[in-house]
């Protein structure tokens, strides 16, 4: 894995978090976070349990909005240069640009086809051929097309766990988002399914920008170009993955990677 830092015309980072504090009511969960996510790179967020990596991920598509009293108290989150907390931001459009895959696979109790087409349908797409094409493209990206093309109208819940998770990825990329957020997507899967999804991630990075939360440091090494290490709500270190794992700048990172604490 080579963190391809080929400086071209330097496009702005697709996601930029600036000096952000985040609170659940009175308790502060994130402190002064600064993070830049580059186009077509896989960025991993690692850290011990409860360090705020999932919260940070959910700040990017404002999934925290549904938690009463949870809010950004300082700083801003920019997606494609736009502050997503601005009054004129349409949440629906934001989430169309920033897709998400959850820890536990959660396909709808509908057919495979309807699952993938759901995102397009809620954004008003009715044209059958557009939907067909999007379903085929998304399933192909998720490496499911060959397996499932003959039973697109079977219930999605009849699939295996790994297939379900890949279906969720297909569903998330059907609307062609810029960023794909993944919240420990492999934690509930067996090693073989995990491997498949990790392979998939390299493919996905060609089309999308991926931000992945993971518990598994080996996974971070395997899939990511950049890694951010969080601890107790603070971003301790953010660097190209190779650099962070081989030559951490911070002592805290070093001891975490060595397994002195977890």
């Amino acid at each position, binding site marked *: 894995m080579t963190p391809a830092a080929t400086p071209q015309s330097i496009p702005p980072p697709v996601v930029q978090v600036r000096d952000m504090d985040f609170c659940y009511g009175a308790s502060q969960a994130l402190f002064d976070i600064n993070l830049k996510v580059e186009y077509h790179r896989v960025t991993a967020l690692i850290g011990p349990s409860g360090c705020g990596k999932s919260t940070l991920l959910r700040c990017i598509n404002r999934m925290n909005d549904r938690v009463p009293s949870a809010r950004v108290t300082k700083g801003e989150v920019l997606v494609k240069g736009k502050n997503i907390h601005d009054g004129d931001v349409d949440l629906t459009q934001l989430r169309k640009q920033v897709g998400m895959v959850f820890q536990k696979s959660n396909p*709808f*109790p509908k057919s495979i086809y309807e699952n993938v087409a759901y995102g397009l349908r809620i954004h008003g797409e009715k044209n059958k051929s557009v939907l067909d094409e999007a379903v085929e493209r998304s399933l192909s990206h998720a490496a499911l097309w060959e397996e499932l093309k003959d039973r697109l109208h079977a219930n999605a819940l009849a699939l295996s766990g790994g297939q379900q998770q890949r279906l969720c990825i297909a569903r998330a990329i059907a609307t062609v988002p810029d960023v794909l957020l993944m919240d420990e997507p492999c934690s509930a899967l067996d090693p073989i399914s995990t491997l498949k999804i990790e392979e998939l991630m390299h493919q996905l990075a060609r089309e999308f920008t991926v931000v992945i939360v993971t518990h598994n440091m080996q996974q971070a090494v395997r899939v990511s170009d950049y890694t951010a290490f969080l601890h107790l709500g603070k971003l301790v270190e953010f660097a190209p993955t190779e650099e962070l794992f081989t030559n951490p700048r911070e002592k805290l990172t070093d001891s975490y990677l060595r397994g002195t604490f977890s």
Partner: protein
Amino acid sequence: MNSLPTPSRPPLRSVLLRSRKHTILGVDPQKLIKYFFGSNASVAIIVLVLIMVFLLREGIDFLPTYQRELQTYRRAGLEFCDIIDQPLQRNQALSSSLRQAVSASLETLSKPARDRRDAAFLLKRQVEDKTARPRESLRQVLEKTPPEPEQIKVLRGELVAASASAAAALSYPDFFSTAEREQLQREFAALTPEVTDLPPLLQTLVAEFDVKDGEARTQFAELVTAQEEFEEAAEPLQEVLDDLKAKALETKEKAVEFDVLEINRQRLLEAAATETDPEEKASLTQEAEESVSEAVNLEESIKEITGRTAELREQVEKYAVVIEKAAAVLPKDAGTGAARAMVNKVREDIPAHAREMRAAAATLEGWRWDKPVSIFRVIGAFFFGTQWITNSSWQDFYGFVPLLTGSLVIAAIAILIATPVSVVAAIYTNQFASEREKELIKPVIEFIQAIPSVVLGFIGISLLGNLIKDVSEWGWLQWVPGFPIQERLNMFNAGCLLAFMAVPTMFSLSEDALNNVPRAYIDASDALGATKLQTVFRVIVPAGISGILSAILLGLGRVVGETMVVLLVAGNRIAIPDFSSGPGVIFQPAHTLTGIIAQELGEVSRGSSHWQALFMVGIVLFAISLLVNWCARAVARRFEPHKA
């Protein structure tokens, strides 16, 4: 670091032995507790089985009993008479239409006069009511001997004063002129107990009406005669039929009496057979022999009836001819549009009625008194019978269809009303309501369950019935089918109340179903940018649909089984509602499966055919409930995708 002393270990061999525990009667108490819990669970099952056995035991004899009754009905000749009598019922309906048409026509001319007459009589009665007490005392004094002139004079004065004040206090309708009002007031004031003649002005009013009525009758002479002719047409036929019916009924009563005696005799003989004491045995046998009565010679008496078949047929033919003639001379016009419509309807219906009568007469020949009534016939007569007639002097029929129809229509109304209300309320409460709203809505809706159904019935009678009737009379609502309604107590009223009763069940279960939709579905939908409404209608409701459907079915079960409200509010008319009037049918009264049991079971003698018939209804009701509940469970399983 000082380690604490290790507790001494028991010797090796005894470690694995089961320690001695207390036993109760040699049984481990843990097992006893287990059996106790198990037996409590099985009590429910045992009771359910017992209920089924009891219902079946009481109800299953109904079919043979009813078969015997229908057999007697045929053998005694009642069925024979009904072949003609049933279609002849139509005559009364036609007759009454004609009568209404005639009176509506006459009213066009005589109504003002009649109103004046009736109003004057009403006023007179009001005065009399108000002066009842002085008049009564005066009458008592007048009847005394010897008369007491002093007292009479005083009381008469009192009566006159009372009459005068009552007459003055009356409100006279506008159609009396000032002069007439004054005269009426004078005449009322002068009313005394001795004078029985009507006061002069009242007499004039009566005469006025008679003149007008006479005029009207001349003007609509054709209609009046046609109506009279039509009414008289059935008389000769009815006479013959009444003769036959009387004979048939007599035979039937004798046959029934004989049956009762015979059964009694059988019982005595059975008792004698098992009796061991020879003396007792002899007396029982003797009693049995004494009670032997003469069997009715059915063949003999039926001949008397069937012997007159030709005569009956002839009368039917005559009747048909006469009514057809009457139809021909029915005038094209009548006093009002409604009357004209009625006359035209009758004119159209008469040929069909005549045909029906002739067809009925033709079947008389093929009728055989000794043809046995098959059990399938009996089953058909119960399940497809359109008449539920009990305590009849003629013949009891236990036809199930009117009750079933009533129950089903009411249940359908209730479910149609309750489903949208409760499901929408559940969606709102589950998905859109704030915590405070939830805290208000849920307990309030669940509280409805606590309202005793008899109280709801009360509300239906005193409040909802009047409300629906008043609303149905509003002019701008007349496009609604069935408006204005005739009966305050009807299926719609009952359906509304049952809907109200079903809402808590359906609401709570639907809400549970929505609650059980996994959070992850909502997360996924939100993360794809769906709006709240899109999430609700594309993900949550489809995922919860099995629970919602099963909630609706359980609501249906509750509605079908509910008794008190329908008994009080449905109107209790045992007849199949007239579906020809379209959707307006829901404003007709009806009786129900549950209502009939509640109403009649207390009054029938145990073990009679009526008793057994009610148990049959109970069995069917039970079967319906089981079916509905089974469906609810099946639906819940069938559409449970997230548990697949």
